[in-house]
């Protein structure tokens, strides 16, 4: 398994990062030129960018769960202007295509983001986050086919770049939501985002404090993998769009199963925290064992 076509891009392998789980700019500071020389992903997805800067949620932001992680990061980012001015030039130097993930709480906000990001030559595709459970947007736009359709109907015309819709898993029937995205002109869907979750109250300080500063958060990591596989398979059974499958990918096995279930690309999130080269490790394993794969297929 080598080059992959995805939304008109030709990628060196099918493994990318999940939005918000790899800060390439910080990583360059930490790892120096090693970062660019061995960049683990075939495309780089930015953290979610919002119109205005956000500081993110108060700590604690992390809680380790059984075979997983609950986070309530709260989408800290410099805002659109800061992203375009400070981050984009740095990200453009990465050796892979750049996908910028954006989120807005109204159609107007989303349009502003998609237009501004989409017109930049450095950006190969736009991913629209309609699913982050950590943030009080009032509504979870992606939780229901009708509201997602309404949003996309307005947003879609505002960029010619490939538009990937990152679906929320916190919904009754994700395939219906994906079908709405397809009908309204999305170029791809990505899933799953984190499952809405809660960490127990922490009893470490004198007063009972929540284990997470924001009370609730999102669950990721191996614990969610069976849910991710079910949702990717359900979406693949319903729509013809390319799918970026993610959620609990730790190694080759999960990556291959998601691809077999219908994903075109897989994304790695939490596993990168354990091993910054996880993406490259998985890509190499996918490349090395096609024989094995055929053997298993008959």
């Amino acid at each position, binding site marked *: 398994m080598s080059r992959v076509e995805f939304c008109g891009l030709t990628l060196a392998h099918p493994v990318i990062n999940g939005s918000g789980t790899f*800060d390439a700019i910080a990583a360059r500071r930490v790892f120096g030129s090693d970062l660019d020389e061995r960049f683990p992903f075939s495309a780089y997805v930015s953290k979610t960018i919002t119109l205005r800067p956000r500081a993110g949620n108060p700590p604690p932001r992390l809680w380790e769960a059984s075979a997983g992680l609950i986070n309530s990061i709260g989408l800290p980012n410099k805002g659109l202007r800061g992203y375009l001015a400070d981050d984009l030039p740095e990200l453009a130097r990465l050796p892979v295509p750049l996908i910028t993930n954006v989120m807005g709480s109204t159609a107007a906000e989303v349009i502003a983001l998609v237009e501004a990001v989409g017109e930049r030559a450095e950006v190969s595709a736009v991913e629209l986050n309609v699913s982050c459970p950590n943030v009080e947007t009032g509504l979870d736009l992606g939780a229901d086919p009708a509201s997602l359709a309404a949003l996309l109907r307005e947003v879609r015309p505002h960029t010619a770049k490939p538009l990937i819709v990152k679906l929320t898993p916190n919904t009754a029937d994700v395939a219906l939501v994906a079908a709405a995205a397809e009908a309204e002109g999305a170029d791809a869907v990505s899933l799953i985002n984190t499952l809405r979750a809660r960490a127990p109250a922490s009893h470490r300080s004198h007063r009972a404090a929540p284990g997470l500063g924001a009370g609730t958060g999102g669950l990721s990591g191996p614990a969610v993998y069976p849910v991710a596989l079910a949702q990717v398979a359900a979406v693949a059974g319903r729509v013809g769009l390319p799918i970026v499958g993610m959620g609990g990918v730790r190694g080759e096995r999960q990556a291959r199963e998601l691809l077999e279930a219908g994903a075109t690309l897989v994304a790695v999130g939490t596993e990168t925290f354990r091993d*910054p*080269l996880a993406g490259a490790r998985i890509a190499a394993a996918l490349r090395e064992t096609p024989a094995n794969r055929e053997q298993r297929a008959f």
Partner: protein
Amino acid sequence: MSLASLERRRLTVTGNDGVGAYRVLRVSDPHGPPPSPGQFSMLTAAERWGGGVDERPHLPRAFSVARCKDGEAHYLLEDVGPGTRRLCELRAGDEVWVLGPLGRGFRRPREGRRAVLVGGGVGIAPLAIWQDELLDRGAPHALMLGFRDGDHALGANLLRCARVATDDGSLGHPGLVTELLETELEDDPRAEVYACGPPPMLEAVRSLCERRGVPAQLALESGMACGFGACFGCVVPTRRGGYLRVCVDGPVVDADLLDSVAAITTGPPCPA
């Protein structure tokens, strides 16, 4: 400051010795980038990481490099949960994944200032390697360490010429290490303080130094998922508003960046 390789390295444990309430895990690392004092590594047991209480640990755990000697990195461990428990079990021949060295370490004292090292509990770890470097350079310094009891105070033997305070009075000064610091700053106000320990101690150090106009470098702890800036999970609030990431903006930060260290105390994991 040394740069880490993007690849975590599978290294062999060469020893694991009890020192009072602590353990010193030694890992063979002759070719690794030399850590600067105050830098840390993310550690994961190569076998059986997971399967402890609540099926944890899952993520790697952060540990200050406590010493770097004879091609070995030393880590000082206190068993406070499933991750530290598993690492405490490792014996010579076992393997660990090591990502590091990470983060920003201690900076030399400003011109004309003498280093005063203040440690509490397992927070003595980064002070050990820092003292090694100060000794190498022949830099004069003072060292004071606080522990909850005599068993923990045995950790002081890992450093040289420490003044010790214990909460229960079983060794040295009966009371808080910050009381020793107060006297020290009284005697020598041209100090630069280097502190690592539990948040209440760091906060006491911070406010004391602020009151006295003494610069302080604090080695912070915070719950970390990645250690290299990827997760945005390890933040602490800054005086200017907003947050800094302990893993990439720290763990050693200038005290005047912070309004208070108390705000961090709720963060898991963050041992005494």
